[in-house]
């Protein structure tokens, strides 16, 4: 230190406080919405009798709120506290910090408004429509720029492993988000995916899996590597292992996405690739878990008394369990049982409630007393929170495992006659309703614990005094001599490798933008000749299906198993989805698969079933949609929709957008006429008519053309 002068600077705690408070507020909101959704699954009345609060719209609201609002704000709070301290430099730009904060909250607010209104792209964890997607990209880049700026201004040459995790999360999420969100807008809040059918599915799950990886995992590993050693006051068990953990994890994660599409119409080799990488992921994941737990060696006495460490131990253990379960679930034979069941729901909640939730709680319990320079208001309350949360996780996950195995085995069961033992899907649902009740109870316990935390931390803050700017000092980082006033590009040019990469990336972006549309349009040439584009009315019905989140409970992908083809009909083929923008394969069967529902029931059955599902299927958990019989659907934008589809390469005849409305009305009249024959009076331009037209079309094309040639 001799000869170096210390520079004075300060860390901004206020932004951490705001992000932390947002974490708590949105956390409670997200969990409450989750509890509502869980209740709806055994008490359909909890759908509250209006379109805005039905399960199909509430579920994406819950997932978005807990992932992007609760966990998202927790990441930002954690990063804005730890990064400046690790790098001995305040965050690069305070204005940018606040743009990031308010921008992110505005995005969440827009989700809270648009999702209940049914404005959704329907792609899981990427439901928000295109203008919000653009806002997310901008705000995310602001966050990244702030981090990279801080990195450049740092006074500590060495970048601690947590920083690596933060940076990788930023870069990867940016790329994934942009590519998955590519869509062609129809209007301000409606767009059609740039990809169709099986391609859309692949891009979505390439994104979906990596959203889990780079939003819920890597940033939290960064947080773990900072807050766990800090809370235990022990260095991480092995710093070397943490570096190996980081690099191996990020190299493997990007390839695992196809394990979400096993036994679907995705090509086999892509599925195998996904499985192989998923299984390999076990190694780095457990390396990280072991590294976290062993950090506590010799400190287990502290775990007994410190609630912060208790939460951390369960969080890291849950990380280990979830990352053991993940590779297990991606083995094809396990996946055949688990896919479409509550097993997946249990799996994500072990990760979400255990890993993300508990690490967030521990971080907040650690941060609050420090920033307010006081002691935690009540350790006893925090301990109560810990046990409520832990029991909540158990009451959530265990019934879900039971439900999943019960239902899956019932789906597969054949009677001695060679027929399905439970041909009625509903039987397999009614069987697991008690498990759904227990799950909601688990959620209630977890939420109650979180409420205790908020009370505890508010009291803590009230008792202390907030340190807005924490001062620190450190010597400046020795710089290599640079000429003043030199053109910024010169500096880049002196770093040939860096420059080459930048240039390559720039070229690639251009190339990709050019290539993608060509490739995708070409691939829209139907591979099954009898598969035709949707009629205008069916397209409207499909958009209604999307808006109401039907995909949350109904898959449209029949796997090539005998127990599936027996129940639903011919297995699904890639060529059947070439006009599906977005794809609607779904990932969970709370209700039966709908890919071959077309023509299975008369129009009147669908009418009665939508008005009151229990009238057709006693005991059904589906929310009733009585308003669909009177809500008039606005068909005025059908021309614009057809034009958008044409631009995306769907072969409607030229000028069809002009005639679409006419076709739509004549098809609607036909369906209304059908219903009239069954004694049902309904206006042809109601929502129900459009929906029935879509449902009756589903999966019927290949039947028309005899044997399809793929």
């Amino acid at each position, binding site marked *: 230190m001799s000869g170096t002068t210390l520079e*004075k600077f*300060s860390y901004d705690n206020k932004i951490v406080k705001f992000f932390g408070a947002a974490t708590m507020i949105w956390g409670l909101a997200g969990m409450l919405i989750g509890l509502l959704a869980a209740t709806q699954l055994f008490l359909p009345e909890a759908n509250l009798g209006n379109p805005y609060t039905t399960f199909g719209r509430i579920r994406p609201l819950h997932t978005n709120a807990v992932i992007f609002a609760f966990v998202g704000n927790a990441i930002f709070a954690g990063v804005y506290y730890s990064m400046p*301290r*690790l790098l001995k430099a305040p965050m690069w730009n305070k204005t940018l910090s606040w743009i990031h904060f308010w921008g992110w909250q505005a995005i969440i607010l827009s989700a809270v408004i648009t999702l209940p209104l049914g404005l959704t792209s329907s792609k899981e964890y990427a439901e928000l429509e295109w203008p919000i997607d653009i806002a997310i990209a901008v705000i995310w880049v602001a966050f990244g720029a702030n981090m990279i700026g801080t990195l450049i201004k740092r006074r500590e*040459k*060495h*970048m*601690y*492993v947590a920083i690596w995790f933060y940076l*990788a999360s930023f*870069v990867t999420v940016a*790329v994934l988000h942009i*590519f998955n969100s590519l869509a062609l807008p129809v209007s301000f809040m409606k767009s059609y995916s740039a*990809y169709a059918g*099986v*391609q859309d599915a*692949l*891009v979505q799950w*390439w994104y979906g899996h990596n959203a889990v990886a780079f939003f819920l995992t890597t940033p939290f590993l960064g947080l773990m590597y*900072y807050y766990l*050693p*800090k809370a235990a*006051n*022990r*260095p*991480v068990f092995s*710093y*070397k292992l*943490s*570096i190996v953990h980081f*690099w191996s994890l*990020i*190299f493997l994660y*990007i390839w695992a996405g196809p394990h979400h599409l096993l036994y679907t119409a995705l*090509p086999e080799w*892509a599925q195998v690739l996904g499985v192989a990488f998923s299984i390999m992921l076990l190694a780095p994941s457990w390396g990280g878990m072991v590294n976290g737990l062993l950090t506590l060696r010799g400190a287990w006495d502290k775990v007994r008394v410190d609630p912060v460490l208790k939460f951390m131990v369960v969080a890291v253990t849950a990380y280990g369990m979830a990352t053991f379960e993940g590779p297990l679930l991606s083995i094809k034979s396990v996946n055949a049982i688990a896919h479409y069941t509550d097993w997946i729901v249990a799996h994500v909640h072990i990760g979400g409630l255990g890993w993300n939730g508990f690490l967030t709680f521990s971080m907040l319990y650690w941060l609050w007393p420090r920033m307010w*320079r*006081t002691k935690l208001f009540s350790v006893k309350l925090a301990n109560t929170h810990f046990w409520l949360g832990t029991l909540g996780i158990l009451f959530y996950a265990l019934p879900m495992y039971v439900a999943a195995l019960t239902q899956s085995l019932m789906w597969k069961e054949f009677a001695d006659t060679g027929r399905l033992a439970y041909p009625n899907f509903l039987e397999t649902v009614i069987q697991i309703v008690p498990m759904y009740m227990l799950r909601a109870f688990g959620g209630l316990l977890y939420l109650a614990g979180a409420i205790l935390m908020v009370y505890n931390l508010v009291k803590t803050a009230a*008792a*202390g*005094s907030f*340190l807005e*700017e*924490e*001062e*620190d*000092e*450190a010597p400046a980082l020795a710089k290599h001599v640079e000429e003043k006033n030199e053109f910024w590009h010169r500096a880049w040019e002196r770093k040939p*490798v860096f420059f080459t*990469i930048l240039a390559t*990336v720039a070229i*690639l972006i251009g190339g*990709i933008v050019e*290539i*993608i549309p060509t*490739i*995708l349009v*070409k*691939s829209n040439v139907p591979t099954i000749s009898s598969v035709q584009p949707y009629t205008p009315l069916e397209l409207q019905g499909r958009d209604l299906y999307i808006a109401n989140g039907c995909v949350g409970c109904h898959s449209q992908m029949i796997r090539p198993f005998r127990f599936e083809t027996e129940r639903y009909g011919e297995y699904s083929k*890639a060529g059947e989805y070439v006009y599906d923008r977005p794809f609607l394969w779904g990932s969970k069967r709370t209700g039966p698969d709908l890919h071959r529902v077309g023509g299975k029931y008369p129009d009147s059955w669908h009418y009665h079933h939508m008005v009151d599902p229990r009238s057709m299927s006693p005991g059904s958990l589906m929310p009733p949609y009585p308003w669909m019989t009177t809500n008039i659907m606005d068909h005025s934008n059908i021309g614009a929709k057809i034009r958008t589809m044409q631009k995306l390469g769907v072969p409607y005849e030229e000028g069809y957008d002009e005639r679409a409305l006419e076709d739509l009305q004549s098809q609607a009249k036909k369906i209304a006429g059908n219903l009239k024959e069954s004694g049902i009076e309904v206006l042809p331009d109601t929502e129900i008519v459009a929906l029935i037209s879509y449902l009756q079309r589903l999966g019927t094309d290949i039947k028309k053309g005899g044997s399809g040639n793929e």
Partner: protein
Amino acid sequence: MEVIFVLIGISLVMAGGFLWLFFKAMKGGQFDDQHTPAIRILFDQKTKSKANKKPPKKKK
């Protein structure tokens, strides 16, 4: 299925970028010391700054 080549391309570019970063970091000496960084983060600043000190009396 052509989109898979796009995805593989993007994934390779990302992986390549990370690989490049790894080598750059390694050559830059980021991983030379695998012991002290873990310990260093445990030491909080010991500034004598008065601003960081808690005000003597608790506000009511």
